[in-house]
C-alpha cells in the first residue's frame, strides 16, 4: 500500500510525536524528514529514536544541504557523500526506507548564463557514477536505499528527466540506488508524465508530490487522477511525500491533500 507522507517543517508541534499527531489528524500516513548537513541529522538520533519508539512513521528523508554529490568542487562533493552515508545509516537505525538527493541544486543551469558548464556531460556522468556507486554500496550494507531526484532544467544541469535518471541508474547497476520522481519537476521536463512513469517503472523507489506551481497538490494544474492511475498501473508500493510550498495556512491546505491523492492512489 502506498503511504502518503508530509515533510516535517509543514507540521505544527515542537516534537516529532506532536507533528505525527497532526499528520495523522490531517490524513497523512507519516512524515518525511529533512536531513541537514554537517552531520546535524546524525545529531538528531536521540530525537529520532524516541519518535520511532513512539510509533512515528518516518520512511524517508530528503536532503537539506547547500552542496550535493554532483558539486563541481571536489571537497564539497566528497562532503556530500559523507553526509549522505551518515544519513543513510541514521535512516537504517530508525528503520526507514532511504534518503533522497538530487545530483545538484542551484549550482548550474544550461538555460541561464553562462550556459556552458565547466564540466563535460561525460565528466558529470563519471562524477555521479562514482558518488552513487559508493552510496549504493553503503545503502545496501545498511539495508536502505538512496533515491536520485531529477530536478528541472533551471535547478540542475545533469539529471532533468526520469529517463536521464534511469540512464545513470543503469550505469550504476545497484538495486539500492533508485529513482525519486517529483511531479513538479516532471511537469516541466516530461512531455508525457504518464509515459515517463511507465518507462521508469522498474526503477522508482520514492515519489514526491507537488503541483505545477510548486504549491501543494490540488493548488495547480497537474492531472492527479492520471498520476494516481499510473502509479497503480506500474504497481508502485513506495511512499508519496508532499514536498511543496503551501497556498495558505498549513492547517487549512494540508488536510485537503491526502483526500485528493487518496482518491486516485
Amino acid at each position, binding site marked *: 500500500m502506498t503511504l502518503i507522507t508530509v515533510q516535517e517543517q509543514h507540521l505544527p508541534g515542537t516534537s516529532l510525536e506532536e507533528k505525527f499527531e497532526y499528520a495523522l489528524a490531517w490524513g497523512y500516513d507519516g512524515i518525511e524528514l529533512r536531513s541537514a548537513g554537517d552531520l546535524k541529522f546524525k545529531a538528531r538520533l536521540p530525537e529520532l529514536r524516541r519518535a520511532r519508539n513512539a510509533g512515528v512513521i518516518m520512511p524517508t528523508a530528503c536532503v537539506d544541504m547547500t552542496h550535493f554529490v554532483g558539486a563541481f568542487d571536489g571537497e564539497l562533493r566528497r562532503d556530500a557523500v559523507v553526509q549522505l552515508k551518515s544519513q543513510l545509516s541514521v535512516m537504517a537505525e530508525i528503520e526507514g526506507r532511504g534518503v533522497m538527493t538530487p545530483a545538484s541544486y542551484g549550482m548550474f543551469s544550461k538555460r541561464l548564463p553562462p550556459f556552458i558548464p565547466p564540466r563535460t556531460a561525460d565528466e558529470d556522468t563519471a562524477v555521479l557514477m562514482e558518488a552513487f556507486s559508493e552510496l549504493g554500496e553503503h545503502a545496501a550494507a545498511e539495508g536502505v536505499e538512496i533515491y536520485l531526484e531529477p530536478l528541472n532544467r533551471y535547478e540542475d544541469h545533469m539529471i532533468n528527466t526520469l529517463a536521464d535518471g534511469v540512464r545513470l541508474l543503469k550505469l550504476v547497476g545497484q538495486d539500492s540506488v533508485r529513482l525519486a520522481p517529483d511531479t513538479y519537476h516532471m511537469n516541466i521536463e516530461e512531455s*508525457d508524465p504518464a*509515459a515517463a512513469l*511507465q518507462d521508469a*517503472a*522498474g526503477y522508482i523507489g520514492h515519489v514526491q508530490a507537488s503541483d505545477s506551481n510548486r504549491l501543494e497538490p490540488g493548488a495547480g494544474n497537474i492531472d492527479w487522477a*492520471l498520476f494516481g492511475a499510473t502509479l*497503480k*498501473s506500474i*504497481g508502485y*508500493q513506495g511512499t508519496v511525500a508532499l514536498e511543496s510550498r503551501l497556498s495558505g495556512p498549513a492547517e487549512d491546505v494540508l488536510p485537503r491533500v491526502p483526500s485528493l491523492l487518496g482518491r486516485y492512489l
Partner: protein
Amino acid sequence: MTAAGASDGVTSGGATLTGGSADVGTSDGGHPATAALIAARSTAVLEANWRKTHTVPAAGLYPHQWSWDSSFIAMGLRRVSPRRAGQEMDALFAGQWDDGRLPQIIFDPHRDQDYAPGASFWQSRSIPGSPRHAETAGLVQPPNHAWAVWKIHQADPAESRRRSFLQRSYPKLVHWHEYLSGRRDRGGSGLACIVHPWESGTDNSPLWDTVMTRIPADCKTVLNRPDLQHADAGERPSQKEYGKYFWMAERYRDHGCDDADPDYPFLLEDPMFNTLLAVSELALADIAAELGLPGEAHAERAARITEALEALYVPELGCYSARDVTDGTVVPKATINGLIPLLLPDHANTDQLLETLNGPRFMDGRALMVPSYDATAEDHNPALYWRGPAWFNMSWMVSEALERLGRTGQAEFLRGNIGRLAAQHDFPEYVDPWTGAAHGTRSFSWTAALALETTYHRSAL
C-alpha cells in the same frame, strides 16, 4: 501481428505486474486482485497509445484518431484520467465539419504512409465545409459520442464543470445529430443512413454482402495495404473488398461529400448505428438537464428513432437488421448489429432479442463473448473480422443492456470474460467467441478501455 511498439507498455509495469499473463488467464476475473491486475495492464495500454491529444486505436495498424473508437476509449480512459478522456473528445470535435459531421478519422499528418486511405486520399481541405486545421476522412462512424461525453462528465462532475466540458461539447453534439437526422435521413424514414461499410464500424459484416455485389471494384486509387503489415491477411478484408471500399469512398469524396448524389449505390439503415443515435439523444437529454437547458426534444427524438427502428425488425430472425434504402429491402441476416437495440429502454422486442442472444445464433450457452455474426450461418467464420469473431465493444454494449434489464448475472459473465480475455491475450482486437483465441492486432485501445471499465469497481475494492 502485434502492433509495433505498443506492447511494451503492457509489460513494463512494476515488479508485481511482470511475469506474463498466465495468472490472469487462469484466475477468476471477478477477484479484486485479478481485477486490479487487469486494470493496471489496461491503463498501461491506454497510456502507451496516448498521443498528447488523443489515443490511437493501435500503434501500428491504426495510427490516427478514429471517431467511435475514441468514444469507447474515453469511456474507459475516464477511469485513468477524466481530463484526458475530455481531451480525447475535444480532439475529435476539432475535426468537426461545418455541416456537423464528426469524421471517421482525423489524420496524424506524420503517419500518412501508414494507413490507407489516408489524408492524401481524402484531400479534405479541398472540400467545402471541412475543418481548416485538421485533415480528416469524409465519412463518419456510429454516433456513440454524446453517450461518452455524459459518462466522462459523470466520472468527475467537479472537474467537468471546472473545465466547462459539457457546455462546449453540447452544441457540437447537437450539430452532429442534426447532420445525421437531417441530411443522412436519405430514406425519409426517420433513420440515419450510412453511405459506406466503414461508417457502420463493422466493415465487412455480412449485412453489406448483397449490396457489395453491385459495387464496382475498379477504383482509381492504386491499392496499398499497410494494414497487412500488422495483421494476417486471413483476418482482414480481402483485396477485392478493398477495391469496392475505395470505389465508394472515391465516389463519395468526388461528390463533395454532400450526401446529394442521387444514384449513389450504398445507402443502408443500420440498427446499431441508429440505436447509438437514440442512446446518444437520451444522453443529450441528460446533458441538457445538467446544463439547465430544455431536453425534451432529445427524448422525443430518441423515441422517434426507436419507433422507426421497428421497420428493421425481422421476426423470423428474432433481431433487427439493416435496410437497403435504394430498394427498401431488409437484409435477412442476424448480426450483432441487430442485437444492439437491446440498449433502448422500454423496448417492444426485448424478450425476443434476449431469446435470440441466448439462442443458437449467438451465445448458445457456450460462447464466452457475443459473436458478431449468426453462428448457424454457413459462412460464419470465428476468426474473420466482423464475420463471426467477438468484439469487446459489442459484448460490452450487450453487458450494459443486460445490466439495465436486470440480467445482472449474464452481464457479469460478459464483463468477467471481457476483462479476462483482454488481459490474457494482450488486449486483442477481437477473439474467437467459443474458445477466446485472440485475433487481429494487439494492445488495441478500446479493448483495454472497456476491460478497464468492466473491472474498475472491482479493482478499487
